């Protein structure tokens, strides 16, 4: 008995130690596709960092990030939590029909910030009152897919936010409110299941409403499937092994386009091999991208001030506009007023996810 116990204890320490050694011996990954983030590497050892304790913290992150079977363990912990009854993991709701939705509660929304942003946009529209300015704030998936959220799931008051938006913008520019049309088509897969972005259906619906509000011609598009293996950013937070993946579809563009900035194309075929396949559209976000169309319907030049929601929306506009100037204020360092002048802009559109608009910190740049 004593011998068996000794052997068992020795085994215990040897197993732990072997796992420990494997952390160092096995090749280290630079990036986790599953979690969609860079992983910590073995920290450089310096005396200062050692004394301050910084090295120790970095070392602990390194061990955690390069841990043997990390992906498997993350999946295991998510599964166990779901089994225990949890319906949210890392601030993401696990909804019915395989949908994941962001968990954003009232405490996450700063109404003062939103108000500030709205007045920046209103001021901008007034400055260019001779141009047609519109704003589209995409209602969040968790609002459109209310019925799919877990029972009683706390959510922020989207309708209250839109009241604020209308109150501050109506009369100054045209607010294209998608709430009603999205609610009417909520069962049609307007959003990805594993990502917070909209699918081609959501973008297409928004396009047709944009056309009818602004009075430009609405074109019909054929769509083709880009991939059926898309696991988006919400998946990267929940890491549920049973999650079904999404299909990405994109409109077929018939005319010839000239794209400058970014990857130089509207569609990035190499994104199919990447983790974040939503970057199929323009290869991701860039400060400034312009798309010129030779065979457009001649609606002029559109200045599009946007976040990533717009990336899958722009392809639809290429049939209408001669030129689309896409500005992502997070990465754009130039002056907007200069751009309006240089590009001879006729229309302006702000296109953002509601929550990202409300929390954006960059609208003061509009005044430059």
């Amino acid at each position, binding site marked *: 008995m004593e011998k068996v116990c000794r052997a068992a204890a020795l085994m215990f320490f040897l197993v732990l130690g072997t796992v420990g050694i494997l952390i160092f011996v096995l090749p280290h990954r630079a990036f986790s596709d599953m979690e969609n983030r860079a992983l910590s590497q073995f920290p450089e050892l310096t005396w200062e960092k050692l004394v301050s304790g910084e090295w120790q913290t970095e070392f602990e992150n390194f*061990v955690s990030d390069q*841990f043997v079977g990390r992906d498997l363990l993350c999946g295991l*912990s998510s599964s166990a939590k779901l089994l225990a009854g*949890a319906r949210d993991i890392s601030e993401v709701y696990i909804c019915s029909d395989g949908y994941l939705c962001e968990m954003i509660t009232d405490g996450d929304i700063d109404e003062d910030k939103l108000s500030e942003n709205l007045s920046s946009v209103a001021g901008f529209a007034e400055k260019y009152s001779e141009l047609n300015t519109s704003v589209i704030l995409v209602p969040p998936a968790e609002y459109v897919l209310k019925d799919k959220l877990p029972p009683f799931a*706390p959510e922020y008051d989207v309708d209250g936010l839109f009241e604020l938006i209308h109150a501050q913008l109506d009369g100054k520019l045209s607010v294209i409110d998608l709430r009603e049309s999205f609610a009417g088509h909520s069962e049609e897969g307007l959003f990805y299941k594993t990502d917070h972005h909209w699918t081609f259906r959501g973008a297409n619906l928004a396009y047709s409403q944009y056309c009818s509000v602004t009075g430009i011609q609405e074109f019909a598009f054929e769509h083709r499937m880009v991939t059926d293996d898309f696991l988006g950013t919400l998946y990267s937070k929940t890491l549920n092994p049973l999650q079904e993946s999404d299909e990405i579809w994109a409109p077929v563009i018939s005319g010839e386009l000239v794209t400058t900035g970014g990857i130089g194309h509207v569609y990035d075929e190499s994104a199919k091999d990447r983790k974040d396949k939503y970057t199929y559209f323009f290869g991701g976000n860039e400060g400034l991208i312009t798309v010129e169309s030779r065979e457009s319907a001649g609606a002029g030049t559109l200045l599009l001030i946007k976040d990533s929601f717009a990336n899958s929306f722009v392809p639809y506009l290429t049939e209408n506009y001669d030129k689309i100037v896409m500005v992502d204020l997070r990465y754009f360092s130039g002056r907007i007023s200069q751009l309006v002048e240089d590009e001879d802009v006729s229309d302006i559109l702000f296109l953002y996810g509601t929550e990202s608009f409300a929390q954006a910190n960059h609208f003061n740049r509009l005044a430059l």
Partner: protein
Amino acid sequence: MVFSSLPFLFLFLPLSALLYYAAPIKLRCFVLLAVSLLFFAWGESKYLFLMLFTVSADYAAGLAVHGFIKKQKRRSAKVVFVVAIAINLGLLALFKYADFIIDTVNGVFSSRLSPLGLALPLGISFYTFQAMSYVIDVYRGKCEPQRNYIKFAMYIALFPQLIAGPIVRYTDIAGRIDERSTHGQEMVLGIRRFAVGLGKKVLLANTVGALYETLSSYGEEMTVLTALLAAVAYTFQIYFDFSGYSDMAIGLGHMFGFDFPENFKYPYEAVSITDFWRRWHITLSSFFKEYVYIPLGGSRCGPARRTFNLFVVWLLTGIWHGAGWTFAVWGLYFFAILSLEKAFLLKWLGKAPRFIGRVYSLALIVMGWIIFSSESLSDVGVFLNCLFGANGFADDVSLYYLFTNILPLLVMTVGVTHIPSKISTRLLDSGKIGRKASAAIQTAGVAVILIMSTAFIAGDTYNPFLYFRF
């Protein structure tokens, strides 16, 4: 480094154990001291000198006190003793209470003394008490002084109980400090105990801790149910966190041949608050009883003096838990209840059915944790306001978190009782199912807890350390 971290589990622990057992017996104390100092210095290397100073001061004090007593120089012994205690308490006061005192002075006299902003050395509240227990017991002649510096330093810095107890008195383990024969069976027992503690901390305490964190973020908007759920969540969190740590410490102790005293005995099964404090953080209560309450005269004096003694002990117990008014109030809250119990309540409770005592105790314990967990006394008011209906009974927040956590909460409700331990003892240790089956179940149990805990630690960002204020 905390026990529930991957570097500890997969690097520090196996390395320490293998080094320890590979070393010749003569060197083992040194190995244990070395790894303990590494553990201590991991986060705050500059405090290594502080630790070595405390060790040296108390080591010298022990020898000096003993030497003077032997030479019948009681007065000199007393001087050394008082100086040693003053050094220990002084360091504790400097690192733990200085800023609190400065803040209070600033508040009262509207002065502008600037706070020192010193980081709390790891485990200072625990190892200082251990060091004091040694000096006091040598002074009282209850134990021989430790002449071997390495062994003494090992006792003070011993990593298993360094950060969260139990507070191991020198006399508790004096024999094992000098001579440890490690048996395989004891090591296996230690591994099992460690795994139980790890599971309590990572799988239960962290889960319910995250729930508490979320709920309490609703602050003054909490409905009755949200506040209730938050209070229950904290009640579970602090028990599983703290007792889980104690289990891990006791388990680690066994792995290295020590037998540490128990620290928790199903405190939420208490039938009175007096009973609760015999079951909760036992080594702390017995420290205060042995070294403060009894020397002050204990209960063997007049009622006024007795009440005063109790007051002192509970004020100290309160502020031992943290330098802040909420902790002082928390201690005095228990002073008030215990005084009432001593006066008449215990007699009443003795006559009533047991479940009345249980409900009474639980309600008061949870109320205590509400004070304990609040940042300030006004936060206690806000919380109670919510708990008593300022925002209505329930809302989406409370219902959502109730339904998504009902299973863990039920598991934890059973987990705080003696039932799981009773079942496992009956199943594994009674010999009913045979040795091999019992060993297989234990191995599987340890493996499952270890794998799940590793998964939770790896997959989670929430792994708080509750003792930063202790």
